[in-house]
């Protein structure tokens, strides 16, 4: 695993602000702006956005899902998304600590 902290190319700050853009029928995009000098830093597109702490309805809406047929499957799949995201985040933080990059 390779980890990087995003850094402003202009003022070298690590303090970033993410702007989430959602346009119907397009992949969601995130524009990263430096919170110190407002410089445009990066843009990336999302394939599987998940906002921790929000419910399955938020997850489904951000993925443009329309009809669904099984309540059981929705709960199972969402529970897997949450579990995977939490596990991956914990791994990333662990790696961060090891590399001495944690704040």
């Amino acid at each position, binding site marked *: 695993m390779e980890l990087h902290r995003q850094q402003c190319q202009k003022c070298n700050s690590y303090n970033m602000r993410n702007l989430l853009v959602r346009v119907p*029928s397009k992949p969601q995009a995130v524009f990263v702006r430096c919170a110190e000098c407002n410089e445009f830093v990066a843009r990336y597109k999302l394939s599987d956005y998940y906002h921790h702490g929000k*419910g399955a*309805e938020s997850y489904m809406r951000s993925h443009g899902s329309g*009809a*669904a*047929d099984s309540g*059981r*499957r929705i*709960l199972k799949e969402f529970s897997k998304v949450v579990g995977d995201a939490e596990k991956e985040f914990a791994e990333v933080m662990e790696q961060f600590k090891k590399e001495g990059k944690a704040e």
Partner: protein
Amino acid sequence: MNGMPKYLNRILALVVVIVFYFCGVFEVFSGWGMSKPVQVSFVILLIGATLWITEAIPLFVTSLLILFLGKTWLLGVLREGGVKISETVFLGPFFSNIILLFLGGFVISSALHRYKIDEDLARRIITKTGNSIPMMIAGIMGITAFLSMWLSNTATAAMMLALCIPIINSLPADDRYRKAILLSIPFSANIGGMGTPIGTPPNAIAIQYMQKAGIAPSFLKWMILGVPSVIGMLVIMWFVIMFFFRGTSKGIVQEFKPLKTVYSRRAKLVIAISLVTVALWITEPIHKLSSGTVALIPVLLFFGVGFLKINDLRALSWDVLLIMGGGLCLGEIISAGGLSNWLVARLPVDQGSFFMLAVVLGVVSCFMSTLMSNTATANLIMPIVMGMGLSQVSPVLVGVAFSCSLAMSLPISTPPNALAFSTGEISVKDMLRPGLIGTIIGIVLTFTAGWWWWKIIGLY
């Protein structure tokens, strides 16, 4: 609910499916007076039931497996026996009028959602009724049910939940109205589905079988039999929710800003095209164009003029259409294989037990739908109803369709229930108590007042 590991569930289902398959291959059911084709169709029914009930594989994959078995196994057995049958018999259900009707519904839903017309309507209702929370809940239930008559229940519930969660969060943490608002959304989305043929897949599946029997109600007639049920059930569920979750807050201050997208020229055209499509569906007996053909109009216009893009087409719920197609294909398999005739010859069904049979099937459907997909339940029960050789099949099919929509007591019962539950604001018990009461009252009303109403409007 999640006690059994997924892989174990899959392995068990696979073992059962293999056992059923070999039962068919070695003609184990010959002792029941079943010919080879009847046994094959019976085994395909058992395999479909096992996989739809356990959800060991995605529901749409089961549908495709049914098609595969029909084409590769039953077709061969029938042809060996000298029956002349085309494989289009099994392929046809996947692109029938009813699938087109649903496709049109999905496209309208996608367009309304893209231009946030559904959301704008909901915002207006909430703003107008927000002074009193019981009135606001009535407004939320009314608009959710209305939208889910035309859009998918799941999409409607997701949109309404997103809109109402900030309202819920603005209430004190111990206010029971929080739960009331949250529960009102999935319940009314489930109920609203009963109102139109495109409200929920079980309605469309029932209509397809009725069409096959030459007795299908028109779009308008379905609304005449469904909308009173929707209104009646909404009123009952409002009282049930108020009984369990009456809170203390007086009202909310929620002024939604107008959505700019709704006032664009394109959005107005989307509304106009959607209304024209609905008008054509309702006037089907006058112009004689089938509802499936009419459903092509919004598909052609929205994609033709670029209101919707290729990505919107890709995002349509094709899996739901495949699940419906698989159920209808199973019906063809049961009919072509002779299982329906075998059932007719053995089931002691007469006019005297006709009503009781409808009640039993309704209760069974409701029980199954509480634990599994409504569409899969309709897919399994309706072909069997058709195979019983009843003289009056319509009220039984409508009863089964309504019973599927009325199953709403558990988080897994329907996708809207699952979405509301996933917010973490309500427990299983919170959903179970009002949901179960609503389900029981709904079933009783369906087979009393509903049965009487269907006779008055000439369904049977």
